[in-house]
């Protein structure tokens, strides 16, 4: 038994070159399931969104969902894939209670989309990730194992199965192995999944929420000594956030390097990522590889997407998120650094929508990246959950119209975030509107001048800076609801300076 000495990440990368690969599953947001007309709503009572087809009852037959095929082709096109002119579904056979038919209808050697790529930006550089295939399959049900220690099937006394998810269309996107990323491998993996998520979200075919499982990721890692053949790879499952993608690759690189350094070899296996510890653990080892006995699904006819249809879908693709971002950065006049901050804050779309609702780029960015970002940070909430782009634009409109000062607007925003209503409603309810009634202002100014005759004289004598005292008095009298600039002009006009 060799002892395995831990290595730092830097040491690991010094000695070994990582090769990564990613398999991503995306649940499509189609209205109905892949092979039946059942709804796909998330979070319904268990086993209420089922029918003979998705329960795999004897005699039932699948009919492929055209919307799902279209969505898959659009994903393939957005990933620069070739769309197969002839493609088939295949059965993947294995026994498991959450699979109603004990086989999964999937695709094997004739997938819908092949040979694509996705460019991702890592530390200002473009990395091209090649896509091997994009195929369509059905999701399984969900099993809940009770009575066991681990929540796994072993040791459980009871298993409950919910088939609501069974048959929801699932797109699998498989990259080719990505070599040559060196120490940036974890960042590349994260950037790829992020970019993929954005691409798919832009297409509007899935809500791609990792926390709800509508985007799931398996991470493959192998290491080799420089100049040598690629090593044995492991597949890490249960990677449920962007941060985890990065951490899983990193920890697997460190683990494998330590194993190799000790003279041991890497076992080809499936591992599970633990959010708590940040490392990977071996899954249940299978003594022999499962033979899925794939064969063409005889219950479905082959798919032969019409070339004209594919061309039409291609022409209608939205701009890629990366190009879109570049265009926004120019339009908003941001430096790379500022744009990166906006991206990191997840504020691109919010700012874009705020501008669309009428605010200037500067104002939109100021609110989202300033006051709102600070608040999101403090409370640990999603930026988008605080308020809407429409409300922010409405707030800015009040400022632009002179009804609110910047300071007042921040207070109004507080009320909006607290759910007190629209900016106009909050302003009215809290009585925060700028005092622009000249009569009221004139009275306050007269009062201030009368109360401070010496200061007034100085101002009259040309010492304009002395006006600050008078302005302060007026602002105090109007409880800050006057526009300081207006007050200043009025005072100077009055004192003839």
């Amino acid at each position, binding site marked *: 038994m060799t002892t395995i000495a831990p290595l730092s990440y830097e040491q690991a990368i010094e000695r070994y070159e990582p090769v990564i690969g990613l398999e991503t599953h995306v649940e499509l947001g189609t209205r109905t399931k892949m092979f039946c007309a059942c709804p796909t709503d998330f979070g319904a009572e268990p086993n209420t969104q089922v029918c003979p087809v998705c329960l795999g009852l004897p*005699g*039932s037959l699948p009919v492929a969902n055209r919307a799902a095929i279209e969505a898959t082709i659009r994903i393939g096109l957005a990933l620069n894939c070739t769309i197969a002119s002839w493609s088939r579904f295949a059965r993947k*056979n294995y*026994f498991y209670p959450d699979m109603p038919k004990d086989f999964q209808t999937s695709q094997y050697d004739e997938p819908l989309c092949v040979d694509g790529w996705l460019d991702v930006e890592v530390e200002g550089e473009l990395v091209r990730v090649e896509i091997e295939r994009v195929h369509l399959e059905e999701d399984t049900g969900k099993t809940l194992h009770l009575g066991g220690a681990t929540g796994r099937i072993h040791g459980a006394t009871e298993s409950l199965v919910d088939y609501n998810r069974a048959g929801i269309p699932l797109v699998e996107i498989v990259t080719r192995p990505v070599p040559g990323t060196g120490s940036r491998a974890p960042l590349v993996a994260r950037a790829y999944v992020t970019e993929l998520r954005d691409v798919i979200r832009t297409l509007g075919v899935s809500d791609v929420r990792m926390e709800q499982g509508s985007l799931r990721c398996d991470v493959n890692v192998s290491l080799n000594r420089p100049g040598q053949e690629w090593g044995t790879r492991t597949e890490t499952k249960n990677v449920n956030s962007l941060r985890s993608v990065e951490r899983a690759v990193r920890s697997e690189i460190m683990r494998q390097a330590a194993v190799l350094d000790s003279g041991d070899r890497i076992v080809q296996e499936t591992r599970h990522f633990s959010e708590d510890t940040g490392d990977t653990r071996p899954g249940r080892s299978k003594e022999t590889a499962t033979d899925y006995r794939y064969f063409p699904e005889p219950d479905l006819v082959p798919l032969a997407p019409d070339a004209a249809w594919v061309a039409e879908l291609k022409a209608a693709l939205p701009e890629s998120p990366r190009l879109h971002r570049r265009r926004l950065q120019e339009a908003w006049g941001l430096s790379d650094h500022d744009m990166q901050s906006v991206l990191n804050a997840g504020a691109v779309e919010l700012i874009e929508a705020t501008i669309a609702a009428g605010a200037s780029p500067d104002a939109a960015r100021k609110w989202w990246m300033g006051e709102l970002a600070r608040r999101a940070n403090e409370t640990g909430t999603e930026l988008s959950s605080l308020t809407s782009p429409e409300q922010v634009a409405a707030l800015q409109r009040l400022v632009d119209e002179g009804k609110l000062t910047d300071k007042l607007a921040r207070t109004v925003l507080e009320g909006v975030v607290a759910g007190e209503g629209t900016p106009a409603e909050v302003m009215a309810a809290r009585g925060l509107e700028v005092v622009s009634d000249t009569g009221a202002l004139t009275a306050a100014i007269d009062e201030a001048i009368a109360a401070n005759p010496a200061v007034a004289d100085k101002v009259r004598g040309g010492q304009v800076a002395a006006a600050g005292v008078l302005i302060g008095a007026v602002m105090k009298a109007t409880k800050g609801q006057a526009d300081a600039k207006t007050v200043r002009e009025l005072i100077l006009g009055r004192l003839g300076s």
Partner: protein
Amino acid sequence: MTTDLVRSSAAELAGLIASGEASAVEVTRAHLDRIGAIDSRVHAFLHVDDEGALAAAADVDARRAAGETLGPLAGVPIAVKDVLTTKGVPTTAGSKILEGWRPPYDATIVRRLREAGLVILGKTNMDEFAMGSSTEYSAFGPTRNPWDLDRIPGGSGGGSAAAVAAYEAPLAIGTDTGGSIRQPGAVTGTVGAKPTYGGTSRYGLIAFSSSLDTPGPCARTIEDAALLHAVIGGHDPADSTSIPAPVPPVVEAAREGASGDLAGVRVGLVRQFAGEGAEPGVVAVFRETVEALVKLGAEVVEVSCPHFEYALPAYYLIAPSEASSNLARFDGVRYGLRVGDDGTHSLEEVMSLTRDAGFGPEVKRRIILGTFALSSGYYDAYYGQAQKVRTLIGRDFAAAFEQADVLIAPTTPFVAFPFGSRTGDPYQMYLADLFTIPSNLYGGPAISVPCGLSDGLPVGLQVMAPTMADDRMYRIGAALESVVPQLVPPAL
């Protein structure tokens, strides 16, 4: 009156009901009485639905009384092979593993029967999951041939054929994967038609081999089979492999053929099936039948289908492969039998114990065969190779149909055999489908028409037609029927 009713054809019964000479309830009751009187000996039925049948019949009578225009077979009773789902009515596929299961939905064909006013009498016996040629593999005991109760009625649809032959039902639904409608038809002296694959919906048919399974009609006359074909056929959006085209003009063809004129029709004699492999009595009747066709004006040409000899082995790779996957779902988790769920077994063990107890030996044999044929490393040599043979057989058919409008062969190499005579050697049983399998692999329609007796037992002529030319086989069948005396089994 009762005897007359049960011996009437479906077309005659429909006429009696339409004219008011008999009510649907009377007709149904007569058949239920007949079943009650003889089915303990024949065992064609696994489940008789007296109540449902009488209610459906009463509904037809009420609708007729209300002046509704009903379909051409309204009020006519029918038996349904127990492999098609019937809502709320037990459906077992002849297997212990589904004993007690009541499906929550009707198969498309069953729904169409109900909508057309046919009265479903019950569910008929079959070899387990339609795997067999004798009903000896039914988990609920075999069906007996009305011609000789010590002999098999054919299979897998022996129950449907025997019910029709024994006058328990004028019509029945069968399913044909390798000959399961035609071979029982031949050995019981009844008509059995396998439509074009995709011409009749598989939705609700418990799958044996998805790329081959084809539901079709069983009847005592060609016209009845055609009438039933027209009711159940046609596109079904719930079955992706269903052909989006109207049913070929089968009823018209049956009526045209009844005139007995086959002038200008080219009948292809498949050289490979013209004598070899069949027992002498069957060959003799077949030759007489060919002469009869010539007398009717048909031109007989010899055609060669060199790959037909590989049909049987190819079939016994493709069908079990698909079956191994189709039958995986019977795992005790969701419905049917569950064994070992006593807290001492793991889930995997419960699945395994359930399948071990629930499946019979022939089903297990085919699951193992199919699992092997699909396994990695063997796929190309077995499943892949069989698919190539399938393509070649399709080409043989295409070439033959250049020379002939239809092809003919005996339906099955031998007449009804005694129970137990072929169960010892699976291959001897598989040979029963030697002549029927090519049409399944090709996908074209084929029919078995009663054409004579050999040693007092029925022999069938098989007529094979190009895909979606189902009408042709009905025309030939009706012409032959017009000159061959009807085969009537001894009284039970």
